[in-house]
């Protein structure tokens, strides 16, 4: 039996599949998006927690807020420094970060994260 041809064809497919990312990006270095802060956010200087925490944990914080607000009616969130905030995505977060496309979406799109926050919550209209 000589199936060399078929086997080599199979190996070529194998190679193409496992090196697909290299072909797809064709070696072009991509730029990492940087979330853009609005003037109001810049003026406030700090968010409800420090930047590094917010970068990695914001979704868990929002999830915790959702649970306390919806299930316990607790609208007040006290941060580490004892400062109180209203636990609300639309009214607190997006008051400063009113630029959804340049703040939220940039990184979300980059890492292919498509949260369903705005299925229900409204976000400020952005002027183009």
């Amino acid at each position, binding site marked *: 039996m000589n*199936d060399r041809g078929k086997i080599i064809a199979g190996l070529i497919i194998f190679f193409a599949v496992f090196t697909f990312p290299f072909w797809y990006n064709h070696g072009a270095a991509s730029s990492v998006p940087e979330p853009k802060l609005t003037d109001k956010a810049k003026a406030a200087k700090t968010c409800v927690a420090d930047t590094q925490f917010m970068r990695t944990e914001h979704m868990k914080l929002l999830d915790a807020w959702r649970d306390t607000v919806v299930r316990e009616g607790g609208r007040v969130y006290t941060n580490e420094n004892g400062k109180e905030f209203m636990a609300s995505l639309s009214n607190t977060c997006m008051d400063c970060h009113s630029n959804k496309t340049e703040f939220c979406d940039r990184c979300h799109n980059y890492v292919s994260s*498509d949260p369903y926050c705005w299925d229900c919550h409204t976000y400020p209209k952005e002027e183009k």
Partner: protein
Amino acid sequence: MNVGYLYSLLAVIVLGLIAYAGVEAAGLQWLFGILIPYLGLTIFIAGFVYRVMDWAKSAVPFRIPTTCGQQKSLPWFTPNRIDNPATTLGVIVRMFFEILLFRSLFRNTRVEIRGERLSYKWVIWLWLFALMFHYSFLIVVIRHLRFFLEPVPWVITLLEKADGVLQVGLPILYISGVTLLLGATLLLLRRVLIPRINYISLAADYFPLLLIIGIAITGIMMRYFTKVDVLKVKELTMGLATFHPAIPEGGISGLFYVHLFFVSILLAYIPFSKLMHMGGVFLSPTRNLANNNRRIRHINPWNHPVKVHTYEEYEDEFREKMIEAGLPVEKE
């Protein structure tokens, strides 16, 4: 006692600690983030091609008809066209079921002595766990392409949506992550808890399972518990995928490097291990050849070419002499 799983567990833990210490204490990000992943992928591809070509070179002189159905025979016997295929189409269907649905595992039986009788019982657990494990792993691997492609194709986004359809928690729970860990754990427990399977299991059986469990646990940790900066992770992986490798500023937690190290080890380990069944399943001679031994002549590939002198040639050579001697000839 089978100590295979203890050695394998120890090996996985030590590997994890090496990567963690290497990054967190020794600052060898470039080694664990750039060099080892590239090395792992290179060993995987080169080793895989080498193994398959090695198999391709071995001669298969005769079809091996290990079949589970009636062979194509006289017209009044109904042949089993899939389990005992006589045509290429039948082989393709059999291979389809084998590769995508693990039909051989589905036929798994357990031998038991029940009272005075020997019984063979149909057992589907191995098939079920294997199916769960392999498909979860496939989905997890495809999902990970979001770290290696920019822009991320819609197919991957769609798969993520389907995988997170339960919308549990934030970040949304992926079903495949749970089933991958569950499937691998069940396959491991099978080898640890069932005495007969434990008896025939080697360290080489436990190590890949434990390594994959290690990959799944570190991945789940990073996504749901001790979060890593996913933007930095993608910066690193995109660097790898575009041949512009760089360690992102600010750094990524050591857990990520443990995950990446485990994956690199797994990739490099595949060509040297039973995990080559990934390529081997396509080349299983008992599955991918039509059972046509009786209808088609198969010539042994290592037969020496024999010089033949047929009767026709003999007669052509000696016809005149044969006629002179009065011997009968076929052609005048």
